[in-house]
């Protein structure tokens, strides 16, 4: 459903993403990992239209979308969440999601948008009460709101950007399960960028690893977790932690 080839993004003399190609199949959850500054967010920003690629092609459902504006890409069916939640504090929780439901689905009808908002809020487990203020939400609540906004746009492909940062273990597991539910129940394909490798490995079907803007590994979680290059660049070269982390990753991936 998504076919990226030869994607490049340069900022002045700095190449943030260098010739990256990958495919995402319908109904798949693809994990995207890599150290800070490896180009994950830049790829996301190009997929969602926030950044225009320097070169390369992004085919979504057979159509070229590279360089389209963000609102056009949303209307084609790619929704996104932001790494740091960006709620609209002047609107209520419900209005935040209804806004996304209205504009994200091509401004058809307000009733449909409000329905979508109710469904999305229920899906992520937020109250559907119309007057609740965003100010009452904590870190976990804001992440859920971010997800609800993306779901309300009725995406075919969801770009989830490090959606678990700042959560405790129980909240993290809950959130990971939610992404899986979204895929299983709504049939939404997901690309998930995440720092916290263990949880990600448990949920994704396939994982792709970036380093310095280049793809260094791709495949099943259990295989990638054992790839020496991945262990080296992603987890560091300190032997003891590396082995422990790899073991942990394999255990999570298996379980």
């Amino acid at each position, binding site marked *: 459903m998504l076919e990226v080839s030869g994607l490049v993004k340069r900022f002045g003399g700095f190449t943030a993403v260098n010739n990256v190609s990958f495919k995402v199949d319908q109904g798949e959850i693809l994990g995207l990992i890599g150290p800070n500054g490896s180009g994950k967010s830049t790829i996301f920003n190009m997929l*969602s*239209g*926030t950044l225009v690629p320097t070169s390369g092609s992004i085919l979504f459902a057979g159509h070229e979308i590279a360089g389209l*504006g*963000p*609102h056009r890409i*949303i*209307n084609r069916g790619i929704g*996104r969440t*932001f790494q740091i939640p*960006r*709620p*609209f*504090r*002047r*609107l209520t929780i419900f*209005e*935040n999601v*209804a*806004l*996304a439901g*209205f*504009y*994200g*689905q*091509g*401004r058809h009808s*307000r009733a449909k*948008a409000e329905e979508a908002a109710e469904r999305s809020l229920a899906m992520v487990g937020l109250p559907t009460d119309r007057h609740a*203020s*965003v*100010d009452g939400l904590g870190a976990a609540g804001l992440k859920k709101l971010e997800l609800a*906004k993306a779901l309300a*746009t009725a995406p075919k492909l969801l770009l989830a950007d490090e959606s678990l940062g700042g959560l405790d273990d129980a909240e993290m597991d809950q959130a990971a399960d939610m992404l899986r539910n979204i895929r299983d129940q709504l049939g939404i394909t997901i690309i998930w960028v995440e720092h916290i490798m263990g949880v990600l490995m448990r949920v994704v079907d396939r994982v792709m690893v970036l380093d310095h803007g280049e793809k260094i590994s791709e495949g099943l979680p259990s295989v990638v977790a054992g790839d020496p290059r991945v262990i080296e660049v992603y987890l560091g070269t300190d032997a003891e932690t590396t082995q422990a982390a790899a073991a942990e990753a394999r255990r999570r991936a298996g379980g």
Partner: protein
Amino acid sequence: MMGQGRLAAWTVGLAALVALPFVYRDPYHLHILVLILIWSFAYTSWSMMGRFGLVSLGHGGFMGIGAYVTALLWNHVGLSPWIGIPISMAAAGVLALIVGYPCFRFRITGHYFVLVTLALSGIVLQVITATRDYTGGSLGYTPSRTLGNKLLALQFDDKTTWYLIALGVWLVGIIVWHLIDRSMSRYALEAISEDEDAAAAAGVNVTAEKLKITLISALMTALAGAIYCQYQMFITPDTVSGIAVSLQMVFAAIVGGLFVSLGPTVGAVITILLAETLRIGFGTRAVGWDNLVYGVLLVLFIIFLPKGILGSVLDRLKPQRKVPRAHEQEAVQIARPGA
């Protein structure tokens, strides 16, 4: 949603306003009321953008275009204001799009947007002054008195007619304000005023939404200028255009209350009564004092009462806030973009 009680209050209030000139005929007081209504409409038009953080100091330009284009078409081409006013509004709308599109497309926001619009105000004022052979320059301009049909020329001698026209136009402004307030566009514009990228990620066409509200605001402001011209039958660049007029709109909207529909109207009552009091009390010695008082008031309001008089009063009356606390900070931001 409008409750039964509020609907009843609006109906009674409007009926009273319509009945007023038939009961009370003091021409001076009616004159003041007409001025208040026309300026209220202009301030309401400004606040359509201002409430979403789009602080324009270019509205004096739109108002000037509304007034001068209508009068020039009447005097030089003999075109009735019934056609001249839509043309002047269209001219202001085109100018708004020409200035707005590059600003919004290239993300000129905050202070820079204010500066661009400030330049617009200045340019319109300069053009009116410079083309003095046609516009009379800074000495002012008078639409020719009609010898024929007064309705066709939109020239009336009695205050009651003008009062009713001004009331109708003012009411249109209030209705448009409420329509936007209850539309999805309000959600989008609130979102844009907070975070343009996040709004775009929710599917909002940021440039188009901003252009839409700018266009509505400019069209209405031009109408205010044209109506003012037809009523006063005398305009000068300083009274209907330029930076001073733009600033006056900001003062009035913020003092009255930017986030409530009748806020700008309260602002107009205050500014016009203030100007009249100074004029009658001190005569020519007080020329320009009103601007000084506006300035001091504006500073005090931004610091102590950022939601304006009406906004703050309504807040006190309401047990539960409709808007979060962060909103008050927003008001300050709107007055001082980028702060």
